[in-house]
């Protein structure tokens, strides 16, 4: 019988502890007095690769914005390496952590600034297409849900071993569409997350 500690909801009030940055608009005093551990900008000065912007809206079963969700992402660097000892290949992007955290705003929108990840090895020696692991927490969720973000402009998606397992009519929910470039010519992608209902985002049992 499993002996792990069970999960509980993150609740509606995590922001001042986990995502204080950008929350000051909610505080009549101007800011919460707590420095963030990790934010929504994963770019480090030495990181090589294409800088990108990701944005999306999180909605519930009624299509209403979820304005109190926390989104965490985990990704490889531009060379497809993870900043973790389990991935023992050498890291050219020494300071790039590959982990980010964002909270949805009052419109249910989250965003990240990061580096486009490279392809990562998958099962049986096959290469996975560039992707980002996405984890969502919110009030009304008793445990986190995991999904993946793939990029619309990556030919590798067609042979990605994980996407191949997803029913074909649902695969589109995992692909971030290319949007108009940002102000500095930064490529932008849109990844909406529909937690329930019409065109529900695929979540993984992992």
């Amino acid at each position, binding site marked *: 019988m499993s*002996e*792990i500690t069970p999960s509980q909801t993150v609740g509606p009030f995590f922001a001042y502890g986990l995502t204080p940055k950008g929350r000051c608009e909610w505080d009549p005093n101007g800011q919460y007095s707590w420095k963030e551990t990790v934010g929504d900008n994963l770019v480090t000065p030495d990181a090589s690769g294409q800088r990108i912007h990701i944005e999306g809206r999180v909605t519930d079963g009624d299509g209403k914005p979820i304005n109190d969700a926390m989104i965490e992402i985990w990704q490889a660097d531009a060379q497809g390496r993870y900043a973790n000892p389990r991935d023992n290949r050498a890291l050219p992007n020494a300071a790039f952590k590959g982990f980010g955290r964002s909270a949805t705003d009052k419109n249910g929108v989250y965003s990240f600034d990061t580096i486009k990840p490279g392809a990562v*090895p998958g*099962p049986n020696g096959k290469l996975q297409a560039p992707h980002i*692991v996405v984890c969502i927490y919110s009030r009304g969720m008793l445990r986190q849900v995991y999904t993946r973000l793939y990029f619309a402009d990556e030919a590798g998606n067609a042979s990605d071993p994980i996407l191949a397992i997803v029913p074909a009519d649902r695969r589109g929910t995992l692909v971030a569409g290319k949007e108009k470039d940002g102000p500095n010519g930064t490529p932008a992608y849109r990844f909406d997350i529909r937690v329930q209902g019409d065109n*529900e985002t695929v979540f993984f049992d992992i």
Partner: protein
Amino acid sequence: MPLVYPKESLSVFPKHLTPGYRSTVKRSPSKPLIVVPHTLSELTGPVYGHDAIQENDNDLTRQHKSEPLGERIIVHGHVLDEDKRPVPDVLVEIWQANACGRYVHIVDQHPAPLDPNFTGAGRTMTDKNGYYKFITVKPGAYPWGNHHNAWRPNHIHFSVFGHSFLSRLVTQMYFPGDYLFPFDPIFNSVTDEKARARMVATFDLENTVPEWALCFRWDIVLRGREATPLDTDKH
């Protein structure tokens, strides 16, 4: 030795849809979750160094001009994996209401006073032995709108990192003997009795500091265990 993360371990987690906790009704996936193998993406996770922590980040009573009102408590324990081995050097973050049950978050406007000397956020890293320690005040019970006269038992929110992104845990620590347990749908969303008990700290008289603070011990067990020869057949 690489760890594995069998899905069977998640059997003690609450279901996504628990109608007694009303907001799960519209925020739980309705379509089947897709089973996929664990790749490097799932088996790795963020690593934080001790430079992520500043002095007194773990002491919620020393972040303002004066100490907050409330019962000063020490909360400590070990972060362990499924084999009960320590998980060293991982980040633990907490947040909680003040002694009156009021959160500083602007969305909490219920009529309990704010404490000018309490924000309620803390973080620390586990040491080589997986040991962590916080100093805070006991949070009060908090009324919420789930059902008529609903109150959350006293609780501290915990966010814990483990060896991989899959071992990441967000949960709540409760206090022994809380009279609100039978009425709380969030606590009771965990249907296994032993698993519920694992969310409850134990009163630790031995580590109480005389004339200064009571102490509660709470160990946190994360996903991840050593592979056995049988496991290698599955991948």
